[in-house]
């Protein structure tokens, strides 16, 4: 096979690391996991796919990493058509999957060493690079440990180290902090910030809105296999059209309460029931809380809890789908 430039897309734009058009995956049985996805990732950005479980995030990553074969559409990763030339595309891809896929038959250091060898490093380079990465990812004192001896956070760091070992054009992380304790999560965020600062392009999936907000330059909000909104976290939040979110817990008929508050409280642009609370979007927080209490009591409701917050990506998601991210 004439491999050197096989699959290199002429239409790939300068500085574009991923481009998909109409990417669709229908699993046997008819489940449409990803529906007509158009994505474009720029070099050097951290891009987040935010959505609940089952939104199609993992399937999307699977298609971009050659593990899931798309039903329709095209995907170019690192300038290579992944569907036509998966083996070539894999050179440009680093993956941190959801589950621990470290090689349990090898030590911590050997996991890195052999990964480097798979990607064509010489024995010497692989050894040097493994040592450097162990240092960078705070794993040096565990170099000869068995993989099963690592804590969840350490295993995750080792998987990230392994994924960047061959210097991929794009690093994929699928739910990287799911199941990690808060400290390990922060450590991982720090690592991702560092990689980003070094110029690494990153695509991560998450159902933690803080994670998307904290880490990502741009976020695509995904549900039922489709992208509902795509922008910077700041722009997404501004798009809500409110600067204050009031969450009201009360006894009684909440849909009725929502209607009442929307009509009577000045500055409220939108009110809806979200699970067992009423959520108000308001512009200007001044005087909102007393007004909410007064209006509710006049309407015969007893407010049991009240809180005020700035819009988050969660708000954006609720606005788009009418449901919470984590249900």
């Amino acid at each position, binding site marked *: 096979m004439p491999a050197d430039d096989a699959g290199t897309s002429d239409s790939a734009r300068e500085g574009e690391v991923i481009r998909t058009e109409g990417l669709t995956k229908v699993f046997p049985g008819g489940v449409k996991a990803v529906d007509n996805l158009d994505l474009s990732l720029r070099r050097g950005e951290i891009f987040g796919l935010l959505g609940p479980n089952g939104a199609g995030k993992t399937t999307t990553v699977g298609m971009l990493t050659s593990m899931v074969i798309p039903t329709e559409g095209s995907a170019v990763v*690192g300038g290579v058509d992944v569907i036509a030339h998966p083996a070539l595309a894999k050179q440009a891809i680093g993956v941190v999957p959801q589950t621990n896929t470290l090689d349990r038959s090898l030590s911590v250091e050997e996991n890195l060493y052999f990964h480097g060898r798979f990607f064509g490093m010489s024995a010497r380079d692989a050894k040097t690079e493994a040592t450097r990465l162990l240092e960078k990812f705070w794993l040096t004192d565990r170099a000869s440990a068995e993989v099963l001896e690592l804590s969840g956070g350490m295993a995750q760091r080792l998987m990230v180290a392994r994924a960047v070992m061959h210097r991929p054009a794009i690093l994929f992380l699928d739910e990287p902090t799911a199941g990690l304790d808060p400290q390990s999560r922060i450590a991982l965020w720090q690592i991702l910030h560092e990689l980003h600062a070094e*110029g690494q392009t990153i695509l991560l999936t998450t159902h933690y809105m803080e994670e998307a907000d904290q880490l990502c330059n741009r976020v695509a909000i995904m549900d039922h296999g489709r992208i509902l909104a795509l922008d*910077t976290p700041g722009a997404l939040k501004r798009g809500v059209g409110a600067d204050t979110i009031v969450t009201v817990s009360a006894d009684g008929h909440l849909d009725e309460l929502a209607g009442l508050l929307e009509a009577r409280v000045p500055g409220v642009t939108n009110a809806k029931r979200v699970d067992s609370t009423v959520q108000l979007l308001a512009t200007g927080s001044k005087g909102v809380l007393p007004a909410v209490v007064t209006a509710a009591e006049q309407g015969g409701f007893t407010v049991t809890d009240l809180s005020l917050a700035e819009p988050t990506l969660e708000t954006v998601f609720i606005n788009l789908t009418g449901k919470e991210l984590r249900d």
Partner: protein
Amino acid sequence: MATTATPRTADAAGVSLTTARRNTVTASWVAFKALLLRDLTVLRKQLNEFLPRTLLQPFLLVFVFTYVFPKIGQGVGGGTGPVAESAFATLLVAGVVGITILFQGIQSVALPMVQEFGYTKEIEDRVLAPLPVSLVALGKVTSGAIQGLIAALLVFPIAAVVPANDVHLEFNWPVVLTLVPLACITSSALGLTFGTRFEPRTVPMMFGVIVIPLTFLGCVYYSWTALGPIKIWGFSWLKWLVLVNPLVYMSEGFRGAFTTADHMSLAVVYLALAGFAALFLYLGINGFKKRVLS
């Protein structure tokens, strides 16, 4: 903190090396060799598991049948006395080497793969190495075959030395040097087929319903040509039935390769083993692709 993306010049930072992409054929070959190196490193690290699991069963087989039985005067292989015992020991050497190679296919390919697909998913990193998925599967077959070869080399001296009576060896080197590797590949490919089709839950069934019958009906303890007298309505049913078993061709072929015992035609042996190898490679590689790609 979230702001608009600020694309950086990745190459300057030394992170992205997309431009340095290598030719797929070269990259695949390098990755293939590294996969073998990984498997052999694991073998070296787990030698303390490899040796007993490889040596004990053949040793016991030979020890009981060709040492204990003659010593206690219990006849096997149709007779007692040094001549019959020596003939049986000769017959068994080939069978023991065959069974050893077959078991390597199961132990070094099928069982780890069942684990990796069933629980650990750790094969995923190797599947993401820059080579076609079918070559990852072929790499597994190759390293399994190498382990089979090592096992055969270790077991052969045991089978030849332990028996109480002489084993009549006669090496046909061209046959030894071609048939042993072919048997190793066939067994390893069989291991791949099983490894991609069985779940951790069904492994006991794989042993009980497939592996055990294969070994008992694999012409390990008897020669295929001797099965003729087992007849129903004048038809040597067992002699024909066991022909579906690849181990039969290994045992019989090895009889021709390094003993003076009677054996099946070597042309049939080569043809059948090559056919089985092709079949299992096809089933195994396809099964592997089905398990890793969706």
